[in-house]
């Protein structure tokens, strides 16, 4: 289905911390079309500063108490001027929301396991993926790393879906101390012969590279969601390119907005 553009009213903007918020938007037409891993391009409506929209994975598909889709949410982390504006939005403000865009994750079903590896704000695409995997009754684990224990969000949400949690924090306050790739590697090592785990990853680029390489080393497939500076989200501007393997020596620069943001981890060339 083609993407649509909605002037979406802010239903809620829940501040999870001084940096993170979950911005809920009344955009049912976007919500019903969204598949896990797809993204929206958003900006406050009617302003020319910021000029360009910013890409966000759809975090949740919002439903009313009868189950009807009423919108989507995004997980926003204050980083620059645009994300600061989004963090400060109030209920009733209006956001231009274009989507859904991009290639979604491919879900797996039993006997394959699903391992979701999230770093920080990279949690965003995994709420919808976990819901879909739960429908498939796939054995799902979330490997979730953050700087501190306070920045591990939505754990109840994933537990309610039956997702096993493996946590890591840089300060060791919760879960393993250090990078989330350490417990991931331990789990990959522990896989029996013939076991198959689809490793999904979203987070900082060094983490994506490490996850894709670990998955490859243990002969498991991976799907990674990349984030690049993006201009349009539709393939028009050629800003968001990533190098993808092409033949033995060459890499092609492909647009992550239309060929991604989800790529086969083995297909990407890491710098």
């Amino acid at each position, binding site marked *: 289905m*083609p*993407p649509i*553009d909605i002037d979406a009213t802010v239903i809620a903007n829940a501040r999870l911390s001084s940096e993170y918020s979950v911005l809920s938007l009344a955009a049912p037409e976007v919500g019903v079309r969204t598949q896990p891993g797809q993204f929206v391009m958003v*900006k406050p409506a009617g302003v*020319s*500063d*910021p*000029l*360009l*929209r910013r890409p966000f994975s759809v975090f949740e598909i919002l439903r009313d108490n009868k189950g009807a889709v009423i919108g989507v949410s995004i997980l926003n982390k204050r980083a620059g001027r*645009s994300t600061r504006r989004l963090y400060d939005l109030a209920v009733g403000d209006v956001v*231009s929301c*274009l989507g859904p865009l991009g290639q979604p994750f491919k879900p797996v079903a039993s006997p394959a396991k699903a391992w979701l590896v999230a770093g920080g704000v990279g949690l965003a695409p995994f709420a919808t993926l976990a819901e879909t995997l739960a429908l498939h009754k796939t054995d799902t684990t979330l490997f979730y790393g953050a700087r501190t224990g306070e920045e591990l969000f939505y754990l109840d949400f994933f537990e309610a879906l039956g997702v096993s949690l493996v946590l890591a924090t840089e300060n060791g306050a919760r879960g393993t101390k250090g990078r989330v790739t350490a417990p991931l590697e331990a789990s990959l090592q522990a896989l029996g012969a013939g076991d198959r785990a689809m490793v999904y990853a979203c987070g900082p680029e060094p983490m994506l590279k490490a996850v894709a390489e670990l998955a490859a080393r243990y002969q498991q497939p991976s799907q990674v969601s990349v984030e*690049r*500076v993006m*201009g*349009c989200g*539709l*393939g*028009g*501007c*050629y*800003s*968001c*390119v*990533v190098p993808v393997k092409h033949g033995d020596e060459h890499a*092609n*620069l492909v647009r992550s907005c*239309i060929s991604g943001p989800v790529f086969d981890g083995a297909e990407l060339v890491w710098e």
Partner: protein
Amino acid sequence: MGVMTPDLSVAIGSLTLPNPLIAASGCFGYGLEYDQVVDLSLLGGVVSKGLFMKERQGHPPPRIVETPAGMINAIGLQGIGVHRFVKEKLPLLRERGARTFVNVCGTTLDEYVEVCKVLSQAEGVAAIELNISCPNIKEGGIQFGCSLHGTFDVVSAVRKATTLPVIPKLTPNVTDVASFAKAAEDAGADAVSLVNTFLAMAIDVETRRPRISNVLGGLSGPAIRPIAVRMVWECYQLVKIPVIGMGGITDARDVLEFMLAGATAVQIGTQNFVDPFIWTKVLDGLSEYMTRHRLASVSDLIGAFDPTPPKAGHA
């Protein structure tokens, strides 16, 4: 007579466009990327990404950075080359009823000529936009676009190689852009388009490093619009061939401003990223303006700017 439907058509040399709105090169992919959000036949025209003879990879990312009311880009003319364009894209553009302008690049005068010859033999090319103004690559034609002789020579050479309308795209990074429009006219250009982006840079003060990989890039967006309008007016006063104006257009009023300054048609670039559904909104806005001002033809607005100073105190 019933309700008058405003006539939005404009003529660029032998070419008649149903309306003056053209999608700018580098801001609309090959057109087909936007097929799912806009009916390409509704646009006056679509300009392809810049094409050389061969494929190009472009610059490494990051390729863009947002700046106040604008953006700086250095994509580096990533493109599929003219042969793949003719084979893979042109038939689909024809099918969709798009009026396709092809943005032609070259590292040498011969390459411009050869690319134009390929396009002359293809079916479905409405016009050639000669890219002699990309600020982002060393051998991307800017050496032609920043010299009056170079501009004259490349337009003359291409003029001899094709019967398609030839529209050099001019750089604003010169002292007097109108003299370049005149050189292009003298060499046989059918129209000129302007402006390409303004050479610019942005620095990350935390890291002290450039915000984009190429260090320098081209500034576009509303930030450049008043300068672009001025340049279009200067060119309009000096040349007789049509001027296609662009630079930071966001709505119908901006289109009208360029047309009053002398543009026969306009291109929309950066705003297309902000709002890919802009086209029908601008067309509606133009029709509304014409009805309100009781205008029969949008062509009547071209250069209809009245330089009488405004009254003091007028908003």
